[in-house]
């Protein structure tokens, strides 16, 4: 089954007419396959930008080679005018730059899809009647257009011109986006780009291919939309939440957050430190937190492991801290540029001792922005470390969404008002309240924050009763958080056969699968957890409306047959009808995989 709406509207290729036919389409998945130095990402990014501006929904999927230059690279753009929730199971169009791009990706093209290939580099198997082949001498036409230089740079822009024509995209807007993109480069760069673009736009596919497409007009209000990737959205969410200090150490796919914070924070009067390692990074962030500022650190899988001892300190000392973990394939160096959700248990239970902390996960690119704001709220209000579990797919994926409302932007304040004689940082009957350095202590006694167990005043104590009471206190404050959280929204009906439960970037595919299943008359609904630990109340109430539960996540089923969230849910609700769908292939869920698992779960 193809999830692509185009499939239902394809023209008959046996149609004898030779005049060009224009088709109205809802959405299209375009996969560009080439090498990283070809600027594949640039075309993908420009198309996504254009879609965002044209009130179209857009979602992208990128694989970035680990090597900096050279190596295969793909960029998949899905543009549509309805709800676009996932990058798409199969491609409607494959643009193949090289023989190996063709060979490796032809299988991702749906039946009756179109393979647009560079005749200068690719010799396809034209006997393959599954798809339509359209050959274009991309390399030589680009070289010719730019003026005979032997270099073929610019063929990405040539292809963009070709697509603009083919899909009847808004040429003016795109030209403007290209101009902005190359604004800071030498003028010859822009000139060559425009020559290549025009050559692509003017290229006549006519005889070999007699179709062209037109998207249904978008529904979103284009003026108020922005187009960006998850890491950027997260970065600006932190800035809007008033986070001004932080530290980190580079690792893919976390690095782009720290790079942006390092250049953005000084504008806001803040500082981001590039540390010598992850242990130093979290320590510097804790130093800022102790000083009275909400601070951020972050990393990806291996780096989160290195932060664990200090993260335990932050739980013990009850300091407000945001720790971002952009998950990638593990364990160890694993699959640094692939997606996985296998750090959930590490995020919740990593470190030694009982270390209650909060775990949040964004569901899409837009949510990366809002999850940062929510993390900051919780960290401040409950004086606790909060881990944000985002992932590789969200980190680089580009989506268009409504421009965030800036009325709630937080201006951070340093509270060093003098404290009374009876000051207690860790009262048994009230919220944690630190006196940062610089605070005058009216009683003349100054506090020392410690990782040793301590009493209400923060004085070290190994009294058994105190350890129990303080353990209770650290746990109970997060249980209080749980009761204050809204219970998850149900997508679909409140009653039915199967309830899908997901977290993080599986939100889109799960939602799309629910829509498809419901379209087929199946009683399938879904909930998605943003607050994963502690979980909100009310999940059990929701579960009462369904006969079985399928927890969907990108990690391994482990020794006992259940993924990480499924294990937690089974532990919490002791419900044997909780089943698990997991996978570890470094690629996001396809809609058909979820549909198949729903069917299988009934057996």
């Amino acid at each position, binding site marked *: 089954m193809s999830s692509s709406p185009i499939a239902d509207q394809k023209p008959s290729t046996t149609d004898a007419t030779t005049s060009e036919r224009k088709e109205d389409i809802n959405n299209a998945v375009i996969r560009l396959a080439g090498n990283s130095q070809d600027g594949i990402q640039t075309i993908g990014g420009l198309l996504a930008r254009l879609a965002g501006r044209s009130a179209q929904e857009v979602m992208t999927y990128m694989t970035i080679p680990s090597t900096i230059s050279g190596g295969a690279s793909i960029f998949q753009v899905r543009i549509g005018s309805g709800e676009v929730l996932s990058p798409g199971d199969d491609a409607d169009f494959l643009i193949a730059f090289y023989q190996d791009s063709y060979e490796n990706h032809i299988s991702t093209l749906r039946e009756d899809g179109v393979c647009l290939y560079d005749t200068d580099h690719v010799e396809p198997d034209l006997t393959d009647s599954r798809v339509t082949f359209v050959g274009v001498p991309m390399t030589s036409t680009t070289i010719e257009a730019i003026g005979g230089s032997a270099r073929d740079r610019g063929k990405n822009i040539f292809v963009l011109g070709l697509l603009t024509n083919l899909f009847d995209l808004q040429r003016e807007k795109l030209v403007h986006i290209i101009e902005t993109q190359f604004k800071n480069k030498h003028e010859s760069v822009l000139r060559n780009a425009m020559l290549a673009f025009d050559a692509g736009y003017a290229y006549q596919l006519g005889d070999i291919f007699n179709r062209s497409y037109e998207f249904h007009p978008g529904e979103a209000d284009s003026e108020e939309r922005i187009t960006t990737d998850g890491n950027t959205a997260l970065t600006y969410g932190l800035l809007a939440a008033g986070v001004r200090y932080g530290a980190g150490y580079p690792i893919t796919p976390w690095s782009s957050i720290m790079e942006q914070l390092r250049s953005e924070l000084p504008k806001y009067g803040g500082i981001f430190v590039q540390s010598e390692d992850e242990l*130093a990074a979290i320590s510097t962030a804790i130093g800022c937190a102790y*000083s009275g500022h909400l601070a951020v650190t972050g990393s990806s899988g291996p780096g989160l492991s290195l932060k664990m001892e200090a993260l335990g300190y932050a739980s013990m000392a009850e300091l407000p801290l945001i720790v971002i973990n952009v998950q990638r394939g593990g364990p160890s160096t694993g699959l640094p540029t692939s997606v996985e959700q296998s750090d959930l248990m590490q995020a919740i239970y990593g470190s030694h001792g009982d270390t209650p902390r909060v775990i949040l996960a964004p569901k899409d690119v837009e949510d990366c922005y809002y999850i940062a704001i929510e993390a900051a709220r919780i960290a401040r209000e409950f004086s606790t470390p909060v881990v944000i579990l985002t992932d590789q797919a969200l980190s680089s994926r580009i989506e268009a969404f409504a421009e965030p409302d800036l009325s709630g932007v937080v201006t951070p304040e340093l509270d060093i008002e003098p404290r009374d004689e009876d000051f207690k940082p860790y009262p048994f009957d009230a919220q944690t309240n630190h006196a940062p350095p610089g605070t005058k202590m009216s009683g003349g006694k*100054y506090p020392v924050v*410690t990782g040793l167990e301590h009493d209400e005043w923060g004085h070290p104590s190994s009294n058994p009763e105190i350890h129990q009471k303080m353990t209770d206190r650290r746990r109970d404050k997060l249980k209080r958080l749980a009761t204050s959280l809204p219970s998850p929204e149900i997508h679909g009906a409140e009653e039915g056969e199967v309830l899908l439960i997901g977290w993080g970037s599986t939100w889109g595919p799960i939602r799309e699968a629910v829509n498809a299943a419901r379209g087929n008359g199946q009683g399938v609904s879904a909930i998605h957890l943003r607050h994963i630990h502690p979980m909100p109340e009310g999940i059990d109430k929701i579960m009462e409306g369904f006969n079985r539960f399928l927890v969907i996540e990108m990690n391994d089923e482990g020794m006992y047959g259940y993924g990480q969230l499924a294990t937690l849910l089974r532990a919490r609700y002791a419900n044997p009808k909780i089943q698990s769908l997991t996978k570890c292939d470094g690629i996001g869920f396809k809609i058909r995989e979820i549909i198949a698992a729903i069917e299988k779960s009934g057996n």
Partner: protein
Amino acid sequence: MSTAAPAEPEKLTKKALISDHPTWCPACGDFAVLAAFFKVLEKLQIPHEKICTVAGIGCASRFPYFVNSHGLHYIHGRVLPLAMGISLSRPDLHVFAFGGDGDGFSIGGNHLEHCARKNPNLTYIIMDNFVYGLTKKQTSPTSPLGFKSKTDPGGAIDQPVNPMKKLISSSASFIARTHAAQVKHMMEMFERAIKHPGFSVVEVLSECVIFYKGAFDDGNPRKGGEFELIEEKAWDDTPEDDARHDVTSEADAYAIADIQYPGKFGVFYQNERPSKNTLEQQGIDASREKCAGADARDLLKKRFALMK
């Protein structure tokens, strides 16, 4: 909230700085370090609430509990990146980090190197006892060859760290060495370290009377040793001055650091390059000027406009 906000800043006294009675073993060298620290703070009259003492883990690292000031007792080996976070985000504070030789040269060795290179404005006092005290007599990175410990019953075989050389090669901007039995010298070193803008380190030979008794007698005239001071250049154009130590010369500092134990005491090296605090602030000022003082909302609005 506050009950009293005195108009006149109160005078900082040693009495106000004394906290609980230290839990160190009687006669531990660290007592003298604490006493010297109190006296210097009293002399410098730093506002009480602006004093911030932090430490890692170890006997020496218990220091913050014994000073009545804002403080933090952290985890083993990571005090310097922590202290850097405090210093950079709160330039109004006076940040003092404390620790032992294991904390500073072993588990925290890499942080020492990078903190030195980054040069944040803070003072680091290492109480070097050539042994792991808190964990009861294992070989430390400064234990001399042949030192018998629970991890080296036959005597230490690994070459010890030379702290001065390590600090010089890491580009620390103020490096001094002193002895816990020489209170006046200790105070002088602390004072100069505190006044130094940037990262200042003082290594104090501080005896662990339980696990390495007599370790520093060779540097203590009262125990028959010799406390030899570094003679710094007076820049007085006299022939004697040629032979004196130029604190701005790394080569001179290395030469002194190479002298056989117990070696010399005093300032090995000092260089007034800009601190990380200054450089980061310059970055902030330049960015703020570029965006003409725009507030967070304006900045975000502008950025979102570019994403449309």
